[in-house]
């Protein structure tokens, strides 16, 4: 059974389109990234999955359950990091975790201490006194401390320093090993390339591509870039035949470059 399954999921704000006809499936033990610029519909999709927004059309099922009707049962099994984590300025992370643990029927704080140690997070200072990055660490702990079956993370590494970003990626791999499905949105395409199994690219509220990361990169090998400047156009064979050249190869594009082509193509089309 898929961890997440949407069918024609659409959300309009009056006449304004949030997302339209989003159909996607994420399996258990899979890390799926949702890519798109600000306003493309990533957060709208996530909030609709979490029943914070009610869909205009289509449906979403999580663990086979209806995302609206069964939302309480679903949320018992998932962990969520909102795009802008906050819990009030006066409360500490430990207070937030204590309440969430009670609401989840846990006796203690689950893995919170272990995660706090890994992320070097301060759970005892009021959240209002923490930097954005340190608040984000607390937010990640609130999403992970109860070892959920599904993680929904909106821009999870936003504000984290490179060391903590690395720690986060390690943690995501561990969660995948554990069988947890991970659905995340991100602007950090390098980390998506390193940790995700599949990506969905969303543009103007519509899902324009869903591919395995490896397939997406392989498929676009024809988009070559040779960073050598010649006075006249040349074939690669000519480059190889040049005196003094031992080898010449096409540069492999990064996921970021592939991603950007979707937008460049559109802009060129509009012009």
């Amino acid at each position, binding site marked *: 059974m898929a961890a997440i399954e949407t069918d024609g999921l659409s959300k309009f704000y009056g006449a304004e389109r949030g997302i339209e006809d989003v159909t996607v499936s994420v399996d258990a033990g899979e890390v799926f990234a949702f890519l798109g610029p600000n306003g493309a519909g990533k*957060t709208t999709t996530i*909030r609709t999955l*979490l*029943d*914070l*927004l*009610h869909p205009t059309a289509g449906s979403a099922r999580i663990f086979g359950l209806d995302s609206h009707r069964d*939302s*309480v*049962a679903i*949320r*018992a099994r*998932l*962990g*969520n990091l*909102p*795009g*802008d*984590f*906050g*819990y*009030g*300025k*006066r*409360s500490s992370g430990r*207070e*937030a975790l204590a*309440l*969430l643990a*009670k*609401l*989840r029927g846990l006796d203690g704080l689950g893995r919170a201490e272990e995660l706090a140690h890994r992320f070097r997070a301060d759970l005892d200072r009021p959240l209002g006194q923490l930097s954005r990055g340190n608040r984000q660490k607390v*937010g990640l702990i*609130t*999403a992970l401390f109860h070892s959920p079956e599904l993680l929904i993370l909106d821009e999870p590494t936003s504000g984290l320093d490179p060391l903590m970003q690395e720690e986060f990626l390690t943690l995501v791999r561990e969660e995948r090993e554990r069988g947890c499905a991970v659905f995340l949105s991100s602007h950090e395409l390098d980390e998506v390339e390193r940790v995700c199994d599949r990506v969905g690219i969303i543009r103007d509220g519509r899902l324009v591509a869903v591919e395995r990361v490896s397939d997406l990169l392989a498929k676009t090998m024809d988009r070559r870039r040779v960073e050598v400047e010649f006075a006249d156009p040349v074939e690669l064979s000519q480059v190889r035949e040049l005196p003094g050249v031992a080898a010449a190869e096409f540069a492999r594009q990064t996921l970021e470059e592939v991603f950007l082509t979707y937008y460049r193509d559109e802009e060129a089309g509009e012009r």
Partner: protein
Amino acid sequence: MSALVLAQLHERRRSLLSWGLPIGLWSAFVVAIYPSVEDALAKAVASYPEALKQAFGIAELTSVEQYLNAEMLSLIVPLAVGYLAVRSVASGLSGAAESGRLDVLLSAPVSRRRLVAAGFSATAVELAAVLAASVLIAMLGSLLTGAGLSFGSALAGYVSVWPLALLFAALGIVVTGWSLHTPVVTGSVAGVLVAMYVADLVGRLDASLDWIRYGSVFRYYGRAIEDGIDPVAFVGVTAVAVTVAALGALLFDRRDLSS
């Protein structure tokens, strides 16, 4: 439910200091000065226009209870505690939405209706605590100055504010069904609070406009410090408040929670 209620009460623990203490001290001051102004008051009240006395429920000011009613319970306490009620319930819903807390709480297996019920219950307890603190401080003022305030009467007077304030908390929940901006919630319900007070006042001043008082909860507020609590009004207003809060919970359940 209890974990959410306790968490909200923990958040609002300063209400006793920021609301209970000032209202209590003001009440204590009013009680404390009564023995020294008692004679002057009787003469002053005799010279008040009849309509004014009727509007503010001032029959005579020959007891400390009547004086406390005229100075505090006829205007200041119901308006202040009514405003506190909507402010508190808004902090648990629209305020929580603005701070991001709502998103975090709704990532746990908690329904929105349960969240609203917890906010309403916490507000009810908070209001009761603020009113209880006010009565106790007022009694302290009486004991220190020998004003002779009856504890039972004072308690009835302050307790009678509770269902009235609860109704404004419930109206605050209804407004969050449309808006999650705290100034909109508190401002609109505070406007209704003042409008209801004015409507009741106008209805009492002009007998031909008495019908207007039916649109105001202040019609059922009375003078409990002198006459005792009217159980029908107390239970009726409380029941209406709970019903309105339940309607608000339904509206809150159906709305989108945008980031």
